[in-house]
C-alpha cells in the first residue's frame, strides 16, 4: 500500500503537503513524532521560520500566525498541510474500516442517499474523513468561528453537500469546502477556508 496519496484535484496552489512514515513500533509517540516532522517540513516549505507547533490546552495544534495548517496521522503515516494566508485548514487521513453501522451513526439519511456510492461518488470512509477534516478546520477558525472548540460540538454534526466536484461541509451556517482523494485502503480529505 502506498503511504502517500496524491493531493486531491482542486486543492488550490499554495497548499503545502508533507508526508512522513510512522516508525515502529508505531505507537502514540512515534505517530506524534511523524506528525511533528511533517509539520516542520510543511512550514519550512511554506516560508515560515517558526517550525514548531505547540498544542492548545484543548489539544488543537497552534500554527504560526499567517500559516494555517493541520495534521493527521494513522498508525503508519502522518501528513501535514499548510496553506499560507488561509483562514482555516483541516486534514484527515483515514484507513479504518467504516462499517455500515458506523456510517449510519455519522452520516445523515440524506448524506448516505446522495453521497455514498453507487448514487454518489464517495465511500463511507471518504465521508468520515471529510467530516473530520471539516471539523478540524471549523474548530481552528478564529475565536472558534462562533462554533466553539473541539469540546463544543461533534464532528458528525457537520453536514455535507455536493457542489460540482467538491464537498461543502457546514455547521450552524459556517461552511468550508472539502476535497477528497480516495485509494483502496486510504482516504485523504482536505478542508480549506480562505
Amino acid at each position: 500500500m502506498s503511504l502517500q496519496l496524491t493531493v486531491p484535484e482542486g486543492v488550490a496552489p499554495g497548499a503545502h503537503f508533507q508526508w512522513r512514515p510512522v516508525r515502529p513500533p508505531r505507537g502514540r509517540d512515534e505517530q506524534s513524532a511523524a506528525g511533528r516532522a511533517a509539520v516542520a517540513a510543511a512550514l519550512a516549505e511554506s516560508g515560515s521560520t517558526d517550525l514548531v507547533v505547540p498544542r492548545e490546552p484543548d489539544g488543537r495544534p497552534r500554527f504560526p500566525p499567517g500559516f494555517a495548517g493541520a495534521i493527521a496521522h494513522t498508525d503508519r503515516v502522518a501528513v501535514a498541510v499548510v496553506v499560507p494566508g488561509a483562514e482555516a485548514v483541516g486534514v484527515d487521513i483515514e484507513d479504518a474500516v467504516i462499517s455500515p453501522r458506523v456510517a449510519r451513526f455519522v452520516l445523515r439519511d440524506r448524506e448516505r442517499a446522495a453521497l455514498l456510492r453507487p448514487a454518489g461518488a464517495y465511500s463511507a470512509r471518504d465521508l468520515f474523513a471529510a467530516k473530520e477534516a471539516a471539523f478540524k478546520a471549523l474548530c481552528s477558525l478564529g475565536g472558534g468561528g462562533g462554533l466553539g472548540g473541539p469540546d463544543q460540538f461533534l464532528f458528525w454534526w457537520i453536514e455535507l453537500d455536493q457542489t460540482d466536484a467538491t464537498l461543502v461541509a457546514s455547521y450552524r451556517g459556517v461552511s468550508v469546502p472539502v476535497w477528497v482523494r480516495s485509494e483502496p485502503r486510504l482516504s485523504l480529505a482536505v478542508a480549506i477556508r480562505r
Partner: protein
Amino acid sequence: MVEARARIRALLLDMFGPDSFVTELADTVSLREGGVSSAALVSLLVAMEDEFGFEWQDDVAPEALRSISSLAGHVASLPA
C-alpha cells in the same frame, strides 16, 4: 458507575487488544488525548448501544463522550 466503567473498558480492550494502551488509560483521561481515534470512538459508541441497550441521541453533550468516566456517567443517567 463502577460496573459501567468496567464494561466500557472491556469494550475498549475488545477493540484494541489486551496489551494495548487501554490498560494504562485512566478513567478520567480524554479518550482522544489517550489515543482513541475518531473512528474508534464512534465504534465504541455503537458498541455501547448494544452493550447497554440504548441509542445515543443527536443532541448528546460532547463532554459526555470525553472519557470512560463521562461515558459511564451518561449510562448511569439513563432512565431505568
